[in-house]
């Protein structure tokens, strides 16, 4: 069959089972848009900014577990997409981004809308391709999806020159299989390593499971839950891992790290055996490395060998799909041989009784924590919650206990403000019957506001929970604690009227200024099943995120709300920021 490159590309995407593409047209991709126009099985979502397209594809991928797909034009289309690509890369999200490129004969001539897409994205993709021939399109697309979705997932860019999309060639169909000598993501779990791990686990008197994003991305939630229940061990989860193990289970100690619970961080610090599951010892987790887990033997489970020993030396590493490794552990573990850990639990319960998540309410102001708790109540804990970046993100993670994986969608690794709204749109398209809430802040929401327009066009009703503290709150918090309250550029003086703004985009806007109005407003908002509702909630402008490990400190040096004076961090801590 004779087809042009663009038609071949669209057929390939169809064959991959792609149902949604998020994109934005331009000169270099007009042939692709022409081919998409007659394709009835793929819905194209026309975003308002390419960064929005990539975040939406990302939210779609995180929610569904499928590969997200975005399509952008050359030059500024591609550069706009870069933040989205880097966001997906840092959090290991499977994604294929197709970008147009100038015609191959003019590459390198500073042609109109030419940028070196492969060069610009190289350090923030799992892999990228430049395709200059229609003949190479099908195999490249096959490779791209294979690479993006296997091993440690990540975004793959396919940069296609315009002439390759125009050329007509004989198309032999989408390849069924692909083999690459330089990429073999399948790994067998090493039985020897399992044995070594079990020997440590059997001796543990103060064990803890530390689970990360890999448990979510690797669909290992069931196995993780089984292992935790079988062993009776306490479990703590990272910002990226929330939901893989139910937060409301009594074995869950909550989140760990900079804004984790007291019991999680103290248990990590005192533990003699840490089972790290799909986690990468990020600096927001470890705090000061010199003070990190001084007594523990560490077992590290990960699909990516380069994470082993990258930050923290470990005693046993087990490379493999998290799910496979956990299954192997479950099968090989004789729970009768485990040490009695009653006294460990007693210690943990003492730490729990400190109630590190307690916060003081104040007459006449709405506490942001209350907003999240009310959101949890109103949605019965069943919503998908996306978030932006800042204090509101931490409160959402702390006060909305996630019991299922893929319900908590946030930019953990890159910390990209602007992620929340387009990600919510992607999440809603992936799971249309579920309530989707975007917890955002007055700063973050203004970074991707334009997507309100897309959300109207494609009917993706989400509930925007704007924690409006009138500040770049997280920046203000750091300036309060660590820069002697020199508030430099953390206050925005001219916020828009968010209610009118939402209305002007065709959505519903609600302003909440009194705590008594909070719950009724949220109930009303979630009743509006098929409308996007922007709930602008004026919250305590001075509230800070607690507990907190100031950078430079260890897990056992947490500071608690209202109980500890936030001492200025030390110089080495400031350098770590």
């Amino acid at each position: 069959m004779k087809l042009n490159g663009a038609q071949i590309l669209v057929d390939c995407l169809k064959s991959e089972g792609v149902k949604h593409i998020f994109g934005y047209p331009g000169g270099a991709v007009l042939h692709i848009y022409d081919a998409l126009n007659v394709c009835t099985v793929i819905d194209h979502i026309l975003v308002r900014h390419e960064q929005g397209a990539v975040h939406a594809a990302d939210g779609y991928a995180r929610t569904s577990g499928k590969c997200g797909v975005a399509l952008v034009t050359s030059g500024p289309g591609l550069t706009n997409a870069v933040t989205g690509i880097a966001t997906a890369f840092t959090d290991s999200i499977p994604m294929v981004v197709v970008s147009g490129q100038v015609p191959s004969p003019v590459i390198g001539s500073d042609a109109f809308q030419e940028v070196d897409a492969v060069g610009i994205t190289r350090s923030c993709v799992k892999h990228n391709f430049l395709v200059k021939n229609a003949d190479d399109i099908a195999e490249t697309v096959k490779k791209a999806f294979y690479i993006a979705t296997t091993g440690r997932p990540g975004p793959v860019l396919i940069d296609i020159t315009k002439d390759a999309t125009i050329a007509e060639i004989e198309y032999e169909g989408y390849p069924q299989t692909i083999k690459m000598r330089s990429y073999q993501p399948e790994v067998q779990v090493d039985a020897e390593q399992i044995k070594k791990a079990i020997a440590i686990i059997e001796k543990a008197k103060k064990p803890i499971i530390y689970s990360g994003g890999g448990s979510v991305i690797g669909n290992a939630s069931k196995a993780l839950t089984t292992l935790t229940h079988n062993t009776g061990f306490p479990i703590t989860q990272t910002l990226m891992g929330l939901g893989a193990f139910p937060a409301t289970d009594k074995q869950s100690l909550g989140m760990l790290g900079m804004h984790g619970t007291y019991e999680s961080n103290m248990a990590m610090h005192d533990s003699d055996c840490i089972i790290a599951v799909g986690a990468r010892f990020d600096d927001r987790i470890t705090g000061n490395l010199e003070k990190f887990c001084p007594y523990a033997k560490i077992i590290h489970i990960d699909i990516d060998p380069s994470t082993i020993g990258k930050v923290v030396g470990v005693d046993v590493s087990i490379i493999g799909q998290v799910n496979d490794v956990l299954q192997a552990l479950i099968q090989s573990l004789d729970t009768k041989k485990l040490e009695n850990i009653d006294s460990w639990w007693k210690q943990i319960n003492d730490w729990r009784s400190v109630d590190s998540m307690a916060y003081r309410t104040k007459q006449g102001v709405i506490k942001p924590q209350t907003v999240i708790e009310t959101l949890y109540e109103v949605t019965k804990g069943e919503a998908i919650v996306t978030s932006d970046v800042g204090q509101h993100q931490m409160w959402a993670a702390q006060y909305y206990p996630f019991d299922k994986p893929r319900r908590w969608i946030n930019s953990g690794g890159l910390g990209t403000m602007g992620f929340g709204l387009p990600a919510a749109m992607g999440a809603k398209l992936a799971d249309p019957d579920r309530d989707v809430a975007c917890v955002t802040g007055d700063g973050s929401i203004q970074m991707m506001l334009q997507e309100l327009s897309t959300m109207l066009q494609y009917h993706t009703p989400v509930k925007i929970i704007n924690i409006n503290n009138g500040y770049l709150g997280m920046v203000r918090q750091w300036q309060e604690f660590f820069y002697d309250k020199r508030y430099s550029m953390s206050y925005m003086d001219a916020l828009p009227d968010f209610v009118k703004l939402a209305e002007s985009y065709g959505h519903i806007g609600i302003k909440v200024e009194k705590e008594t109005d909070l719950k009724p407003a949220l109930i009303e908002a979630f009743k509006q099943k098929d409308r996007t509702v922007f709930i602008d909630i004026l919250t305590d402008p001075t509230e800070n995120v607690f507990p907190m490990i100031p950078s430079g400190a260890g897990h056992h040096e947490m500071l608690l709300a209202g109980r500890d004076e936030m001492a200025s961090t030390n110089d080495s801590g400031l350098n770590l920021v």
Partner: protein
Amino acid sequence: MRHIISVMLENEAGALSRVAGLFSARGFNIESLTVAATNDPTLSRMTIVSVGDDNIIEQIVKQLEKLIDVVKVIDLTATEHVERELLLVKIDVNPNTQADIDRQIDQFSGKIIDVSEDTYLIEVAGQSKKINEFLDSLDASKILEVSRTGVTGVCQKRED
């Protein structure tokens, strides 16, 4: 410690920049890097000399292995291996220094590959250490130009 890392990678546009980019992005040090096609035209061999402690070298190897274009990574330093580097150096000569220089070239098994009225172009091959020693043995003020290829190397044993 100094390590010689041999990388077999797909002979594709951009593969070199992926490796170079990895080193700069992660702050790994490169002393030298050479690359050329092998007997299999679809494969290139890259030889990288880097300095770092065991942890860093382990990270370098793992990060290289993670690159999609990379087929195989060998830390040559960990096995019996041969390393070679080629030096081209142009120096001033005059009748007073000539005899001395000739003797040094001989001692390092070098070759004079071009002679002009008052210059020599010399070629020396061998381990980098030997090349350093040869250069040190010359009068620095007489050296006009130095060009070194960087290290290439192979394992001594048969490999499959």
